[in-house]
């Protein structure tokens, strides 16, 4: 795989996706929610900073998810459906480079969007910090623009990269609608996968236990990347945990991209 080709494909994907109208709508809406969190915070007694932190992170997670799924599936499926891939595959490019390049380009798009949302969010938090009196600030568990919040943003990014990998994987063989349903379904199921681990308590020694345990290991554990509650309440997220979660996300994403490459390499573009 040539790094130069990967870079060129990723850049073109970024260029194409960053101009999508739906992206502007999603980011615009996310920024609106982040901005509105300031007003909602004003209505609560003493919980204003936590509300802004909580709502801001939730908005980034939800809109980041929409961006990853819709742009990810849209770009790949559209490429196949509208046959723009025909001209591309006639160039000296390997199919594997195309899949990996697309993945990197989409990850870059999500990273930039997340960065924009984070800057606005920190702006709101900094304004909060600047506008409040010291007496109120003393009651806060942590400063408003707490840099430790970035850990949650970082892990959210790792999670969204995994979502992109899922979207890419499903796009290689499923229709756009099904790819969206599968990706979203796995995202939701992934948040509850921890429950599957303890399912044996309910089902006892029945064979269902093996199925649920198998599913626990197979489904992406999305809850791993959610440290929102910890950072909002100024609890320390250990580096070891961040590293493990990163390794888990990277491994899972790589496995999905590898599977996507395998399917894509043998695909007939009818």
């Amino acid at each position: 795989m040539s790094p130069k080709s990967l870079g060129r494909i990723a850049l073109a994907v970024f260029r194409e996706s960053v101009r999508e109208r739906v992206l502007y709508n999603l980011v615009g809406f996310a920024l609106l929610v982040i901005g509105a969190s300031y007003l909602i915070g004003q209505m609560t007694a003493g919980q204003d900073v936590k509300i802004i932190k909580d709502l801001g992170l939730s908005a980034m997670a939800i809109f980041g998810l929409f961006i990853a799924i819709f742009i990810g599936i849209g770009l790949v499926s559209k490429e196949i459906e509208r046959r723009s891939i025909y001209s591309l595959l006639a160039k000296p490019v390997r199919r594997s480079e195309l899949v990996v390049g697309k993945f990197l380009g989409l990850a870059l798009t999500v990273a930039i969007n997340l960065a924009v949302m984070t800057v606005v969010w920190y702006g709101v938090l900094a304004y909060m910090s600047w506008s409040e009196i010291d007496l109120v600030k003393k009651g806060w568990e942590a400063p408003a623009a707490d840099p430790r919040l970035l850990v949650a943003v970082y892990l959210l990014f790792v999670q969204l990269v995994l979502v992109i990998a899922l979207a890419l994987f499903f796009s290689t063989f499923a229709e756009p609608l099904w790819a969206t349903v599968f990706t979203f379904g796995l995202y939701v199921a992934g948040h509850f996968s921890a429950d599957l681990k303890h399912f044996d308590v309910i089902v006892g020694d029945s064979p269902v236990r093996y199925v649920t345990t198998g599913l626990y290991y197979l489904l992406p554990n999305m809850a791993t990347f959610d440290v929102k509650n910890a950072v909002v309440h100024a609890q320390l997220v250990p580096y070891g945990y961040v590293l493990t979660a990163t390794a888990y996300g990277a491994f899972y994403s790589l496995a999905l991209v590898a599977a996507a490459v395998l399917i894509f390499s043998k695909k007939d573009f009818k």
Partner: protein
Amino acid sequence: MTPAIDVEDLTKDYKVGFWRPRPYRALDRLTLQVQPGEVFGFLGPNGAGKTTTLKLLMQLVFPTAGRASILGRPVGDLGVRQRIGYLPENPYFYDNLTAEELLEYFASLFGYSRSDCQARASRLLDEVGLGAERRMQLRKYSKGMVQRVGIAQSLLNDPEVLFLDEPMSGLDPLGRRDIRELILRLRERGTTIFFSSHILSDAETLCSRVAIVAGGRLATVGTLRDMSGFEVRGWEVVMTGVASTVLATLASRGVKATTVADGRYTFDLPKDASAEAFVAEMHAGGARLVSVAPVHTTLEEIFVQQVHKAGSAREGAL
């Protein structure tokens, strides 16, 4: 000499049906060779297997059986793609990129430097008549303009072999003339051109050889002249100043005369008649010659004949 394109027993089955997929043969043991420098027309009705053949050559689909090589190397070889160009049927590109960005991106995939990519993109956009619209997003392009972008992208690497799938599709008469001229220029440069079309007049004007496919099978291949039935089957003589008595005499001899306009008549002579003797006789009777032209079997007639033949053969096989 190594053929530019060498196809042997190329076969492609698609699976059709959702619950019980069964194979459908889109291409059946296609064998043909295209020599370097040829303009080769690949003709056939819709669903004949033209696009499937091109997709197999571009490795957009994989063959069920048989093999294909381009410039002496297997079609999947990346080195081959460095030396070929391809215009898909009804091309589509990225909505949000400009034509200039798209061509620079595609050119970069050949490994050219940034300045070279820019120069190639700029030159080709001028060549296909889109110089003024180069910075417009492709979503705003008309179908004909997208087709021109498609042609430009297929020429980015100065290909030795160019594959064009229905290149005239979506173009107005001026656009078609431009593309015809472009193909002729490329032919002069020695580019091998393989183009699929169902517009027979283009093939007649441009191609040194043609193949006709029907029902997934090769019906015939050769030069227009060599093809069975492509021969002089008579003469068309146009004359003016023909006296009515002469017309009556000719009618009694079974020579068919058609009034064209302005006192001109067209006479259809059988192929064994002497056109020279006829003209001399008419000249003696006071008529003046406007033109003499041999009447060939048209490509359209050959096409219809071959397609019907292939259709009957297929029905017979079933």
